[in-house]
Every structure is written in C-alpha cells, then in structure tokens.
C-alpha cells in the first residue's frame, strides 16, 4: 500500500507489526498503519503519500568511519593496536598486567580498558606501571570506535608504541565493531568449554590470534586442548594459537614475540608511508630476547 514505491497489486499483508517477506523474495510491500481499512473499503483511507528514500547504508557505517580515522592516526604514529576480546572471566586483565610486567618498560605502551562499570581494571593496569584510561560503557555491551578515539586523544600516545584495548567481556557484540585495531586477539580460557569457537563463531572468525589461557590448570581439568583448537580452526583456518598461562608465565614469551613482531611491522609501515613524519627512529624495538623460563 505504499503510495510511492510501486508495490501495489498483490500486496503481502503485514499483520500487526510483523513484517513478512513478499512471495518469491521479490518486491517488498508496505501496509501503513491507518491505511489498513483501504483493503476493504474504497471510500476511505486513500494510500498515504509516502516517498521512498534509498539509504543503502551499512548499520556499522558510522562506527567504521570512526575506526578508519583511528586506524589512520595509529598508522601515522607507528602504533600497534590490539583489541583483546573474550567472554567475562577469561583472564584478560591478568594477562595485561603480566604482559606489562614482562615487557618491563622495553616497549612504550598504553591501555584502554572497557567495562560496563567500575574503574577497577584501569587501576590494576596503572598499578602495573602503564598509563590506562577506563571507558565505562554503562549499559553498552562493547566498545565502539568513537569511544576509543576519544580515549586515544586523552592518553597522549607515544610514537612507535603498543596500544592494548581490553574490550568488554562479551563474545558477541565486540566482534562486529571495528575499533581501528591491527588485530583482534581472542582469549579463551581452559576453564570454559572447548566448543566456544563453535558457539560464538563471529568472534573467533574476526580474530587473528587466539590465546588459550590458564593452561597451568590443565592437569586439573577435562579440557581437551586439541579439540578446542580444532573447533577454532574449523571456524577460522587462519587463526594463530598460542597456549599461555598469565599466572605461571607459560607461553608468555611467545605472546610477547608476537607483539614485538607486530610493533616492528607497524613502525616499518609507518616509515614507508608517504605521510612519514620526520624524526622517526625505526627499529628501536628490541629484538625478542629470551624471557624468564624456557616455555
């Protein structure tokens, strides 16, 4: 019954508020509230004068614009940014604290913490010796690129540094929201189910690296590591996997190497980009050196 989109004729009735698909998946029909009577009575309720506007905009277009801007800023400064995502309780903050401790100032870094409520996590990070900004999303269940852009402005990020963004603990929404990061890193702890990658495939598909955390607890659990990794690869064949324990330090050197390698790439790319800013010192980041333990 839309007056302008040409969808008259054999309209599909949309009863109440529930829309239905046109037969054969063809043109869509509108029935406008108040115009329902027109079907049975020709005397009243002439089709309303509606105009059809073609919008064709992605639901995330706004976020993607902000993410693009964040990415440009990060690239210009040679900053390697990671978006750490997981369900609640996988040990993200402990992992960050341990990462900061093990890097021990060798690599300038800053942290953006996302939680619905409290400053607790940012305080833990600051206590570990790194600058941190807490974003409280209130009822929001994920960080978005605009929030992160604002936090980046406040942090005064150093050139050629590392930016770690700890997203809200949630395996659903953060997968869809690009923050401008180089990679999403998904953390799965062995106290969760092996089939999380199958249950939340979007997140494992969006990530470049999976950290399998709390591996020090494996002797006490029935968790099947190979099965979890197989499930993750079923969803994302290119997903890299590192087994770690932020508590015991196991696997941490490999994770730190992965970070350093990304940082070097970010610096190199920044250096070869046409918007090269003067005064950049390339390859300042130390080559991976053996860190405590042998893994």
């Amino acid at each position, binding site marked *: 019954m*839309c007056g*302008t*989109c040409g969808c008259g004729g054999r309209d599909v009735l*949309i009863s109440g*508020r*529930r*829309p239905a*698909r046109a037969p054969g*998946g063809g043109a*869509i029909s*509108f*029935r*406008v*509230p108040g115009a329902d009577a027109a079907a049975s009575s020709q005397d009243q309720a002439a089709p*309303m*004068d*509606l*105009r*059809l*506007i*073609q*919008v*064709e*905009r*992605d*639901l*995330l*277009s*706004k*976020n993607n614009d902000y993410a693009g801007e964040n990415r440009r800023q990060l690239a210009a400064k040679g900053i390697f940014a990671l978006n750490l995502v997981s369900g609640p309780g996988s040990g993200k903050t402990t992992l960050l604290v341990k990462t900061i401790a093990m890097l021990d100032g060798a690599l300038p870094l800053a942290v953006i913490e996302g939680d619905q409520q409290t400053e607790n996590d940012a305080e833990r990070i600051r206590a570990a010796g790194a600058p941190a900004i807490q974003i409280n999303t209130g*009822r*929001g*269940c*994920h960080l978005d690129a605009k929030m992160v852009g604002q936090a980046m402005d406040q942090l005064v990020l150093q050139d050629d540094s590392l930016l770690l963004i700890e997203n809200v603990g*949630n*395996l*659903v*929404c953060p*997968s*869809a929201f690009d923050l401008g990061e180089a990679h999403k890193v998904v953390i799965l702890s062995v106290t969760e189910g092996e089939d999380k990658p199958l*249950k939340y*495939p*979007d997140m494992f*598909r969006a990530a470049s690296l999976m950290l399998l955390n709390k591996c020090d607890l494996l002797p006490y659990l029935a968790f099947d590591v190979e099965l979890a990794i197989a499930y993750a*690869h*079923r*969803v*994302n*064949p*290119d997903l890299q996997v590192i087994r770690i324990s932020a508590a015991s330090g196991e696997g941490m050197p490999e994770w730190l190497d992965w970070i350093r390698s990304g940082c070097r790439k970010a610096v190199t790319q920044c250096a070869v980009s046409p918007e090269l800013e003067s005064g950049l010192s390339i390859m300042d980041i130390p080559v991976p050196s053996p860190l405590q333990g042998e893994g």
Partner: protein
Amino acid sequence: MQRELHVHMHELSLAENVRQIIEESARAQHFQRVRCVVLEIGQLSSVEPDAMRFCFDAVMAGSIAEGALLQIIETPGEGRCQDCGFCMPMQEIYGLCSSCGSSRLQITAGGVMRVKDLAVE
C-alpha cells in the same frame, strides 16, 4: 540465558545505529516522519532478525520512526572456496567446501546488514 541477553543487547545497539542512520537521512533529505524501514540483513551477518524486531519498536520510540513498520529482507549466504574456487550457499559463517572439503571459505554474499530504504512522509 546469558547468551540470550547478549544477543538482544547486540541487536539493541545495532537498532540504535539504525535510528542514527534514519535521523541523519532525515536531516539530509528533509523528512519528518518515517512510516516504514526496510533493512537488509544477510544470513551470515551477526544480526538475528527476530531479535532486531524485538528491539526495534523500543529503540524507535520517541524518534521520527516511532511506530514505523519494520521490513527485513533476509539475504542468503554464499561463499567461495579459496582453494578450488567453488561457489556454494552457506548457512553459517564457516563450513567445508562442498567440492574439495577445504575450510577456507570466503563469504561472498549474505554478510551485510544495512538500512536499505525508508518510506517517509
């Protein structure tokens, strides 16, 4: 139970994006009232159409799209095998190539979620 909540939270925030897009269109195209919103939601996008319907009215309340009808066009998922090039329908964002069995499938259709059209006064 927790997952249900998250799923609805997810569509809730996406419905808020729909509202933003509508409000921006209204400013650009000068309309005051939206009667119908047509969304295109790919089968492989992260949006659950029923959850979007569930959130839609609440999110549009108080906006120029209050009371608008929501029409969702669900587009089927398709993928292409990166190893053998075979194209096939996909029901999930991952799967195995029906020709060679590889799991390296690239989504070629059904990944979008967008505001397609608005019927406005």
